[in-house]
């Protein structure tokens, strides 16, 4: 069914205000969008990795979730979710429940790319009927902006600060979306917050309503960690896509689909210059960092185009 923005936005809110995420936090947008992608009438259980989101959305006795929710630890959202799904299967089989439930795991890049990676990989391999959403804000924000394997090269984080002898993080960002695609699960996608949220919504909906495991990677800017004024979030997301730093694509049953081709691919500095974490890259003498970042994006983009048959 075609995306109808007004209809989708008129649904009852399933991730409510009153949570304690920072003003302008991208994670809140992922949660709202993810829950909106559920068909009305379908119930859900959310399994949350320890993260900014967790400590902000279920601070006893206040839950921001209208649906059942479980947080167990930092590194095991996927396995916990698998356990809930297993319980559902057996309860269904034994005729103990009639309702349809969907199982959504959600973690930040720390709980997904790094400490929770084994748990995620295992759950996806086992084929649980669940979706794992990663709200990727490219560092351990909950503990104070330490680098993760998702932090892009040259970003300044509190454990990879820029300094007279440092231009920020030394390594490139791990490509988790590709790694998840290599699990040969039925659905993998990456998206972010754009325009009327059509891209996000359609991917979240497809992920939830694909039988078997699915993974959605959502670039979710963090104003504090990326050092930008809160209201700049939409612009940053737009630039991530227009520069091809964060291409929109999905892998359906092993087939790669590019969802958006920029009319004119913008230089990567258009994305970087909006954020304080790359500020040092623009200092005289550090021009090479931007060149290197550009080269990396270009290489990745060409590979992606080839994979998507473009």
């Amino acid at each position, binding site marked *: 069914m075609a995306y109808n*923005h*007004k*209809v989708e*936005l*008129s649904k009852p*809110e*399933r*991730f*409510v*205000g*009153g*949570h*304690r*995420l*920072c*003003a*302008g*936090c*991208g*994670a*809140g*947008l992922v949660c*709202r*969008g993810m829950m*909106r992608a559920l068909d009305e009438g379908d119930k859900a259980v959310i399994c949350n990795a320890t993260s900014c989101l967790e400590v902000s*959305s*279920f*601070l*006893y*006795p*206040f*839950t*921001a*979730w*209208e*649906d059942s929710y479980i947080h167990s630890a930092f590194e095991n959202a996927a396995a916990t979710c698998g356990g809930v799904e297993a319980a559902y299967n057996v309860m269904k089989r034994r005729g103990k429940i009639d309702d349809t439930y969907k199982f959504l795991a959600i973690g930040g890049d720390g709980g997904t790319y790094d400490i929770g990676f084994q748990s995620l990989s295992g759950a996806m391999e086992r084929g649980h009927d669940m979706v794992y959403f990663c709200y990727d804000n490219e560092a351990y924000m909950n503990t104070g902006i330490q680098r993760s394997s998702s932090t892009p090269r040259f970003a300044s984080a509190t454990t990879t600060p820029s300094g007279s002898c440092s231009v920020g993080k030394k390594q490139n960002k791990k490509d988790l979306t590709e790694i998840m695609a290599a699990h040969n699960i039925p659905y993998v996608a990456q998206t972010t*917050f754009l*325009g*009327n*949220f059509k891209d996000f919504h359609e991917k979240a909906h497809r992920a939830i309503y694909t039988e078997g495991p699915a993974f959605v990677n959502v670039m979710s800017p963090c*104003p504090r960690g990326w050092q930008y*004024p*809160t*209201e*700049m*979030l*939409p*612009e940053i997301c737009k630039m991530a896509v227009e520069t091809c730093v964060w291409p929109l694509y999905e892998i359906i049953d092993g087939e790669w689909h590019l969802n958006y081709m920029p009319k004119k691919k913008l230089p990567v500095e258009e994305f970087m210059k909006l954020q304080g974490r790359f500020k040092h890259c623009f200092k005289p003498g550090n021009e090479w960092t931007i060149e290197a970042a550009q080269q990396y994006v270009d290489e990745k983009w060409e590979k992606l185009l080839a994979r998507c048959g473009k």
Partner: protein
Amino acid sequence: MAKCAKDINEQSPWQELTPGGEIYEGGTARMTITGEWRANIPVWDPQKCKQCLLCAPFCPDASIPVTDGRRGEFDFDHCKGCGICWKVCPFGAIDFVKEEK
């Protein structure tokens, strides 16, 4: 034992708290008034608003209520004043100003 979040507070004795910190209802975070965090406030002009609803999904705090395809006044109990809605409005129907408290 208290069953509802509204009956639980920092004066509740241990016998009154739910075991393991469970909560048996959804959306109790609404009781938290995060609107107090705000320094700047969005101001909506219904006259200029074309009801395109581009602002609504961009609110991290679910503070732009939408009913039957039309948005209403901000939920100032929960709006933290991030200003994203002001930025995404294509029609200048949302202003973003310092809040006088």
